[in-house]
Each structure stands twice: as structure tokens, then as C-alpha cells.
């Protein structure tokens, strides 16, 4: 069992599902959904096993695999997970598993839909498990095309048409990944002299210690990566794809995008940005912190005036990503612990939110908040789910959102007291918009027009139960998550300690 | 002493001449001829490199063999297209074959 290629198996399971789906006849509608569900269940099971079997005390990369792929370029099919990537892998599988059930009612071209859904899952899972930068980029690019097709074919028009939203999303991500590619190539060429070059993240992370990467190079390359990952993470002002995209995309894609893909940006910033280019990260940190605060407050205020449920969650997720950014920018173990954990927390919460909005839209045929109201009468289960998701969003203790935010605040306050103060004020505005939407959608007088809407039941209930349980369990026992995350972040402590004296943008005027 | 630089210079000149022909000739056949010149210039380069940089392995020469094969294929197709175009339009005047604009 020791040498069983667990991570490859996790990646291969959905791929097998894709192959099977590919050869199924078009009419086998139910069958396809069953197969997608079964493959995702197996993948989720394997991931949970990995999470359980990961040795937190030992830390470091585990379940590693390494097969040379393009030896001349230094590309390896290298897999491995540590405390940073494993929670995010778990997140991917949880959300991916849920999306299958959320999409249970897709009856228009189900074959293509589920194949692409599984492709998205593979792409996200691949970015988290790979230890090779080039393969990372390959998996990352796997997202772009299915997202576009799914948005345009299965999406819905809102403030903007779905074609516009899909195109915007795709082009934004492509431009971001162009910057990313430029940064990665520059990194590749500069990290090692000819002949020794490699895309291995581990080896690249050594380059700084060996003195191969000058401060100048690190600053430039980090900036390129920041734009690339920042647009994925919906960093201000590179986020305008997010609300439109989420609103237009089908529920499953919104869940995966908001829940998982955004986290690839944050993961990349830490795994590539911080580990490989510590001086660059330090240089830009004050700037990131400033942007983070803008993210939090600006998006929170905009969320306050949204009228569409999906736009609301879209802007709110931008606001939440600000917490991740400021946690990253503070560059200490506590804050980065919080940032990584917050990515997990937000992913689950956001996915649950979108799943429920999908259900509400399914039943009532509207997402316009003023048209809704009193749904708790007809749909108590949806109401419970929305309560849990909303409460997690506003950082209620006992749900998974609180501890990550708290750790971020504790970590970030040391570095940026003023910014953190502003960031904490975000919790008030979050409460304001979350409670407003809960009140307006769920409570109030019973409305006759929704009497025909039945509550979620059967298969539709699975994602709600799974995600809701995760929110509660990880909230009540935060060490399950934080212990894992910390085992990945704590080894960075020597690196982070070195950075104290490193120069920052404008000598830290922004602080 | 004749060295690598000499051969490369000759190749560069042939290539430049081919380029000039490629860009100025009126007929497609003339353009194809210019392309052949350029291909030959490249072949000279390959063999010269093979001779002076890595004389003990014949990679460059193998490369040239494939170039020649491709060139032959290209001429065959190119001329066939010329015949075809000539039969359809009664001209081989390159400037008039501008359907691809916009």
C-alpha cells in the first residue's frame, strides 16, 4: 500500500469517468449522472483517505510520485501534497462531488455537460497536486475552454448576456495566464543556468537560497505572477469577470469557479509566489495588503446594493478574497495559516451558497431579490442551508469561517495594524448584506406564488448535507483543518523570518 | 582558410536572393523557385554546422535529407496548384490571387 500512487489514482478516477461518459449513448441520461456521481464519490473517498492518512507530525510532501516527462526541459510528472495543498484538494473534491448532484436536473446535452464538469474537476485537482510548474500551468489551462462552453451553452442571461459573460471570463483568465506564462518562463530561465533547468517547484524553491535569483528578477517575476494569480483570485481591480461570470454560468460551474478556481490563485501565490520568490513577495506585500483592504470594503459596499442573488454572492466572494490576500501579505505563519484555511472555508461556503441559489432559481424561476420572500414557509430545508451558508459567510464561530478569519486578523495585525482594522470592519458590512438577503429572501409573509415550490428532497439534498456538514464539523473542530494547514505552513517559518529585513515597495510607505 | 563563416555567408546571400525573388516575382512559378533557393541556403547551413560543430554525428545531414524530401513534396504540390489555378483563372499572376484579403 505504501507505494500505491494515490494522487494519480485521484486524478485518474474522474478521467476514467470522462472516458466512460464519452462512449455512452446520448440517451443514457440517468446513467451518465450515475457514472459522474460514482466517479466523484470514489475520488472524494480517495481524497478523504489521503487527508486521513497524511502524517501531520511528519509534514512535508507526502504521497509523492516522480516520473521524468520531458527530461531535456526538466519537466517531471511529479505529484505530492502537503498541508497547504491537501485541504484545497479536499475542497475540490467536495465541491466537485456536490456539483454533480446540483446538476442533476441538467437534461440538455447531459453528456457534454458532465464530461466538461469532470474536466474542470481534474483541472483543479491537478493544479493542487502537481509539483511541477509546467504541469501546473497545463492543468490550469484545462479550465478555460470548458468554462466558456458551459457558460454559453448552459448558462443564463442576467445583467449581461451569457455570451458576453463567458467571453469576458475566458479572456480575463487567458490574459491572466499569459502573464503567468511570461512569469514562469522568466523564472525558469533565471533560476538555474542552462543544463540544470527544471520546472520542479521544489528545485525552484531552492534557487533563492542558492542566490540564483536576484532581487530584481524576483520583483519583476512576482509582479507578473501577481497579475496572473490575482486575476484568478479576483484581486481588485482584476475581478470584473467574477460577478458576471458567476451570474451567467450554470450553478455547477459557478460553484466550481467560486469555490475552487479562485483558490488556485491564492494557492499559486503561496506555492510559487512566496516559496520561490520570497523577496518579490516581500517587496509587493504592502501593495497587496492595500489592495486587499480595497477588495474587502469596496466589494462589501457593492454587495450591499445588489439585487441578484448570484451577483450578491459573486461580489461577496470578492470581498472574502480580500481576507486571503491580507493574510498572505502579512507574511507570517499565523496569517498564512489563516489565509489557506480561509480559502478552504470560503470555498465550501461559497459552493453551498451557489448550490442553494441554484435550487431557489430552479423552483421559483427568479434570482431577483425583491421578487423573492418568505421562502422559509415553503422551503425550510433551503432556508436552513442558506442560514448556515450565510452565517459562515459572516464569520459566525462554530462554523468554518470564523477561525480562519480570526487567525488572519491576529497574524495581519502585527504587520498592518491600520489595514487590519479596516479589514475587521468588513465583518460588520458582511453581516449587513448577508442578513439583509436572508431576511428578504427567506423571511417575511408567505407568498402565494411560491406555494407550488416544493422543498429540496432526495438527490438534491446530498450537496447541501455534505457541504453543510463540512461547514459545521470543521467549524466545531477547527484543529482538523488548522493542524493540517499549519503542518504545511510552519516549515516556512525560517524563510519568513529571513524576510523581516528585506526591502518593500516604497520602503513600506503603504503601511 | 575556409571556415564555417564562409559557408554561412554564402548561405546568407543565397537566402537573401531567394527572399528578394519571393517578394518581387510576379508569377507563382517564380516564387516557388525562390523558395527553393531559400531552402537550399538552409541546407547549406545545416551541413556546414554539421561539419564544423558536430562532425562526428551526422544529425545535420539527416536533417537535410528530410528537408529535401519536404522540398520535393512542396514543389510537387505547389506546381500542381499552379496548374490548377492556371486552368481555372488562366493566370499565375500572384497579385491577382487576392481572394484571402479581409
Amino acid at each position, binding site marked *: 500500500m505504501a507505494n500505491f500512487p494515490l494522487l494519480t489514482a485521484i486524478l485518474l478516477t474522474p478521467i476514467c469517468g470522462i472516458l466512460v461518459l464519452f462512449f455512452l449513448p446520448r440517451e443514457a441520461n440517468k446513467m451518465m449522472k450515475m457514472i459522474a456521481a460514482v466517479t466523484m464519490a470514489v475520488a472524494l473517498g480517495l481524497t478523504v483517505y489521503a487527508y486521513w492518512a497524511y502524517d501531520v507530525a511528519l509534514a512535508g510532501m507526502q504521497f509523492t510520485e516522480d516520473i521524468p516527462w520531458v527530461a531535456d526541459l526538466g519537466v517531471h510528472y511529479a505529484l505530492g501534497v502537503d498541508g497547504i495543498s491537501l485541504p484545497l484538494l479536499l475542497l475540490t473534491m467536495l465541491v466537485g462531488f456536490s456539483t454533480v448532484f446540483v446538476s442533476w436536473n441538467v437534461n440538455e446535452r447531459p453528456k457534454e455537460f458532465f464530461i466538461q464538469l469532470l474536466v474542470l474537476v481534474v483541472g483543479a485537482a491537478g493544479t493542487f497536486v502537481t509539483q511541477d510548474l509546467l504541469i501546473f500551468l497545463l492543468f490550469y489551462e484545462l479550465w478555460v475552454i470548458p468554462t466558456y462552453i458551459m457558460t454559453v451553452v448552459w448558462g443564463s442571461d442576467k445583467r449581461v448576456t451569457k455570451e458576453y459573460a463567458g467571453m*469576458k471570463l475566458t479572456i480575463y483568465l487567458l490574459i491572466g495566464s499569459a502573464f503567468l506564462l511570461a512569469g514562469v518562463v*522568466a523564472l525558469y*530561465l*533565471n533560476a538555474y543556468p*542552462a543544463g540544470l533547468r527544471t520546472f520542479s517547484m521544489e528545485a525552484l524553491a531552492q534557487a533563492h537560497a542558492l542566490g540564483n535569483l536576484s532581487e530584481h528578477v524576483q520583483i519583476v517575476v512576482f509582479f507578473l505572477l501577481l497579475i496572473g494569480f490575482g486575476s484568478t483570485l479576483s484581486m481588485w481591480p482584476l475581478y*470584473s469577470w467574477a460577478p458576471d461570470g458567476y451570474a451567467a454560468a450554470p450553478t455547477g460551474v459557478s460553484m466550481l469557479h467560486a469555490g475552487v478556481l479562485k483558490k488556485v490563485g491564492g494557492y499559486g501565490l503561496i506555492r510559487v509566489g512566496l516559496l520561490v520568490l520570497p523577496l518579490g513577495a516581500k517587496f509587493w506585500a504592502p501593495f497587496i495588503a492595500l489592495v486587499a483592504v480595497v477588495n474587502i470594503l469596496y466589494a462589501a*459596499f*457593492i*454587495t*450591499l*446594493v445588489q439585487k441578484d442573488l448570484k451577483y450578491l454572492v459573486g461580489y461577496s466572494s470578492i470581498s472574502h478574497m480580500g481576507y486571503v490576500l491580507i493574510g498572505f501579505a502579512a507574511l507570517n*505563519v*499565523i496569517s498564512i*495559516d489563516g489565509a489557506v484555511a480561509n480559502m478552504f472555508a470560503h470555498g465550501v461556503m461559497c459552493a453551498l451558497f451557489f448550490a442553494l441559489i441554484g435550487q431557489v432559481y430552479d423552483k421559483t424561476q427568479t434570482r431577483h431579490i425583491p421578487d423573492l420572500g*418568505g421562502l*422559509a*414557509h415553503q422551503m425550510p430545508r433551503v432556508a436552513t442551508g442558506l442560514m448556515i451558508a450565510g*452565517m459562515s459567510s459572516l464569520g*459566525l*464561530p*462554530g462554523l468554518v469561517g*470564523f*477561525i480562519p478569519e*480570526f*487567525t488572519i*486578523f*491576529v497574524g495581519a*495585525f502585527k504587520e498592518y495594524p491600520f489595514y487590519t*482594522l479596516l479589514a*475587521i*470592519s468588513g*465583518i*460588520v*458590512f458582511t*453581516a*449587513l448584506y448577508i*442578513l*439583509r438577503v436572508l*431576511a428578504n429572501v*427567506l*423571511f*417575511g*409573509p408567505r407568498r402565494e406564488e411560491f406555494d407550488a415550490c416544493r422543498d429540496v428532497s432526495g438527490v438534491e439534498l446530498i450537496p447541501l448535507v455534505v457541504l453543510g456538514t463540512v461547514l459545521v464539523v470543521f467549524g466545531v473542530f*477547527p*484543529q482538523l483543518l*488548522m*493542524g493540517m494547514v*499549519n503542518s504545511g505552513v*510552519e516549515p516556512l517559518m525560517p524563510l519568513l523570518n529571513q524576510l523581516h529585513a528585506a526591502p518593500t515597495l516604497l520602503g513600506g510607505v503603504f503601511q | 582558410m575556409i571556415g564555417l563563416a564562409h559557408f554561412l555567408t554564402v548561405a546568407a546571400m543565397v537566402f537573401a536572393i531567394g*527572399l528578394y525573388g*519571393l*517578394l*518581387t516575382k510576379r508569377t507563382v512559378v517564380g516564387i516557388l523557385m525562390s523558395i527553393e533557393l531559400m531552402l537550399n541556403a538552409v541546407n547549406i547551413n545545416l551541413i556546414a554546422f554539421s561539419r564544423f560543430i558536430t562532425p562526428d554525428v551526422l544529425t545535420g545531414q539527416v536533417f537535410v535529407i528530410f528537408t529535401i524530401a519536404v522540398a520535393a513534396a512542396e514543389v510537387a504540390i505547389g506546381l500542381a496548384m499552379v496548374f490548377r489555378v492556371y486552368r481555372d483563372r488562366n493566370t499565375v499572376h*500572384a*497579385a491577382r*490571387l*487576392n481572394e*484571402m*484579403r*479581409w
Partner: protein
Amino acid sequence: MFSQYALHHAWLIPLLPVIAFIIVGLFLRRIPVLSAAVSVCMSLLSFVLALGVGYGVIDQLITVDNPLIQRMPWLVIPGLTIDMGVYIDPLSAVMLIVVTLVSLMVQIYSIGYMRGDAGFGRFFAYLSLFSATMLGLVIAVNFVQLYVFWELVGLCSYLLIGYYFHKVSAREAAKKAFITTRIGDFGLLIGIVLLQILFGTLDFQHLGVSVPAYVAQQGTGLLTVVALLIFLGPIGKSGQFPLHVWLPDAMEGPTPVSALIHAATMVVAGVYLVARAFFLFSVLPNAMEVIAWIGAFTACFAASIAFTQRDIKRILAYSTISQLGYMMLALGVGSVTASMFHLTTHAFFKALMFLAAGAVLHGLPDKNDIFAMGGLRHKMPVTFAAMTIGVLAISGIPPFAGFFSKDEILLAASQVSMPLYVIAVLTSFMTAFYMTRLLVVVFCGPEKPDNHPHEAPVSMRIPLVVLGILAIIGGYIPYAYHFGDWVRFGPALHMGLNWTIAGTSTVLSVAAMALAWFIYGSGKATSDKLARRFSALYNLSYHKYYIDELYLWLNHTFVDGFGKLLYWIEIYVIEGIVNGLAHLSLQLGDWLRRKQTGNMQRYGYIMFGAALLIVAGLLLLNPLFKGVLCGGGY
């Protein structure tokens, strides 16, 4: 020994209601009888355990200086360790008993009050969850545990205020409660974060050691700021001015909830927090002064609003705010004992009054206005008796419970500051006045012909009787058994009645009651005349000084206005730039498209020329790009 067992298994006290919540919430929502039975049983067990803890504290000589603490790591990362645990000292023991007792009473009461309600099971699930979180708050060993449960009781309060969620007013009140307290929690959270950064720990016991040392070394400057930020939390939770606005609206919830959460237990969490963190506040004289003044002002201010309110529950709500101000005042003048004593007695008599009010509302459905009631004493004798006891207790008439605790507060205030004492006495006068007004208007006078009141069922009367007895004896017995020796901060101070102060306040209270009787009870409509005479003051008080309107206006104008402004920027500036760029590239493409002549040779030389220029440029600029371009250093 049972008390031994209770002391070491005190974590069961909050856990039992959690179990009740899970069982009822998941399985028994549709079965009213079982859900009530499970909840009440678990509450009873909790109460018994809490009594055991109380006995154990006395038996084992556990004092505030020698607490019994159990900890279990909850979150461990380098530089931030947070435990969950049980902190048992007389302070928390008193709270445990009060909370479990009132919670048990309210649950029994609810069986009758909520009978036939569609959400009966849900209601009991929420009540159990509330008990659990409140008890968790009481036994908190550190600030984070306290904050966790602090927020969770806020959630329960939100859920229960919005219990009748089909009512728009209930929904809005719930929202308002949550958001207003959140504003306070914002300060509390910052304060906690700052404490963690300053001291590296949030544990009460450890902080209790390091805070005085810090003050001795570094002075009080920053720590005062921290303390005031933390105090923002209690301001929100305990309805202190200026964040008191949510508490009257919270009366939209079912009356048992108002009794349990918004009178007896949750709202005093702020007082408990300050008492628990008294090691911090007591060394910061400036912070203490702020607390005292906010408390005194709130007490007086809320009483002045209660004068003119007509809704029976709102009057009680303002009186709660006022009494909470009293407790804060006591803390501000440095007397944890007085504050906690008043907290205890207040829990008894205020819960009693709320439950009595609930009985009235139960007897007269859909009538909230006290002037629509009247003459109920004949039809509802038990309720009348209960309310009378409550009014006497809150007015500070000996030997009712409120007398002893109020006297403690007045005594403590008089020792520190005369103005505070005067305000406190004035408030005491006002309290006696408006409470008597309530009693007289509701129960005395002629019966209204279209009212058909009936006495409450047995399950509602039992709690009234129990709490009534406690409101009578709940002051004297602790007084006689040296409450102050146990619940205190610093050295024990023996309580003694100061007859001057006690006498003054008693006389004033009696005078106020007489005045109220004269105005409202003597049958002459002098109250209307007074209202007309002082119409400006009356309106100001009746409209709660227009503070709600001000907040609403601020919220609409600034918060939403700012949101709209930013959304405008978002749509027209940021989106504009994005779409503008897209449009630009489209235009560029269109322009370039027209440059396509279809002439291959032209394409050819342009391409070649450009490529050559680039290569030539790179050749000339090679030193600049060395290593990045041009072969990457080959």
C-alpha cells in the same frame, strides 16, 4: 460525591442542551410533546448539575482567586493557542445557576405559552441551543471561547427574535439585533486581537497575571484603548447607549424568549464579560470611568423613554436597558459584587415580569397597548400577584430582592462619585414611577368590555410562582449568606446596608409609586394633560429621542449611498475600462482587417522586415536583455 462529580463534569452543563438541540432539531421537530420533554429534561439535568457546581464551589472553597479550571486544546498553531475549557469560580457558578434556572423556568412556561404553535419543536430546539451557548459563554476560560459563544448566543437571539418570521417586523427586528450587536462585536474582536498580540495569550488566568505587570511597566495608554474596544462588545450586547436600539425591537420574539434572552440572561452577558475581564478594566481608571458614565447615562436615558411607551413589552425592555445600565454603573465604580448581585436579582424579577406580561398577552391575544388592557386583576390573580412582586422588587422596596442589590449599587456609586450617585437615585425614582404606571394601567381600573381575559394554564403559572418566590427572597438570602465574600474582585468586602442610602432610595421609590398611582390610578386622566402640557418632551421620549430614525437615515444615506456610488463606479469606471479595452482591440482589429490587401508578397516583406528589425534591435540591445531574451544566455 455529587458536587465533586458536578465540578469535574461541568462541561456537561452546556453539553446536555446541545444534545437536546441536536435530538430535537434533527428528529423531533414534528413531535411537540417529545421535543418539549427532551428539552425540559436536559435543562433540568443542567440545572441540577449547576446546583451541584454551586454547592461544590462553596464546599471545596473555590474562590475567585482559586478557580477550578479545565482546559482542552481547541486550536494550536505556532504563536496562537486557543483552549476550550471550563472555568469555575463563584462568579461563573452564580451565572450557571441563574441561567439554568431561568432557562428551565422559561422552558416549562413555554409548554403552555407555545401550545399549538406550528413551530413548537423548532422553538424548543432554539431554546436548547440558546441555553447551551449561554452556558458555554459562562464557563469560558479565554476570550476566544467567550467570543465564540458570545456570537452564538447572538445567533440564537436572532433566530428567536425572528421566530415569527412571517411578520415583517419580527424579521427586521432580528436583523437589527444581529447587526447592532455586530457593530459592538467588531470592537470586541479588535480588542481580543490586540490582547493576543500584546500578551500572546487570551487565557483569563494568564492575562490576570500579565496585565497588572504590563501596566506597571508600560503604563495604561494602549491598554485603555484595548479595554474600551472590548467594552464595545458589552455596549452592543447589553444594550448600552448608543447601541441599545435593538433591544426594544427584540420584543418581537415570543414572550418567553424576551424573558429568557432579552431580560435575564443573554443581555447580561456584557456585564458578565466586564466582570470576568475585571482584571483588565480595574487597572485602567479611565476605562472604568467611561464604563460608569455610559452605564449611568443608559440607566437614566432608558428610564426616561420607558415613561411614555405604551407597549407592555417595550416598557419592560426599556426597563431592562435601564437596569443593565445600573449593572454597568456598578462595574464602572468598581463593584463586581454589586453588579453580579443585581444581575442575579434582576434575572429573577425581570424574568418574572416578562412571564407575567406573557401571561397577560396570552390572556389577551393581539393586544400590546397597556391602555387597551386594564382591570385584569380580577380575572388573572396569579399574574397580577406576580407582576406586583416584580414591580416591588424592581422599585427597590424592602424586603424584595431588588432592594438589596440596588442598595449595593447606590452604595458603591456614592463612594466613588456624587454625580453618578445622584443619577442612580434619580433613575431609581423613575423606575419606580414607570413600573407602577404599568402595573396600575394594566391591572387596576375598570375592565374593558371587549376584553375577555383568562388566567394562564398551570404550566405557565408554576414558573410564575417559583420566580415570584425567588424575587421575594432572592435578595435577602444571598445578602444574609455573604454573597460578597464569594462573588467579588480583589479582597472581600463585607456588605452592609447603609441605612441613609437605603432609606433615601426607599422613600423616593414609595413617593414615585404614589405619584404614579395618583396620575394613572386615581381615575382622573391627568396623564393626558401632562402629556399635552409637556408635548415636546413627551414626543421626544415617546419617539425614543429619534435615535432609530437617525440610525436608519445614516444607514440609508451613507452606507447604502456609498454602496450605490461604488456600484456606479464599478459599472461605469471599472467595467468601462474593461469594456473599453475590449472595444479598442475590436476597433484595432477592424482597422487592421482593412489593411489586408490579400497580396501575399506584401505580407511577406512586412513580416520579414519586422522580424529583421526585431532581431537587429535585440542584437544592438543585447546587453540590456542578456539572460532574459536572445537565447536565454546560451
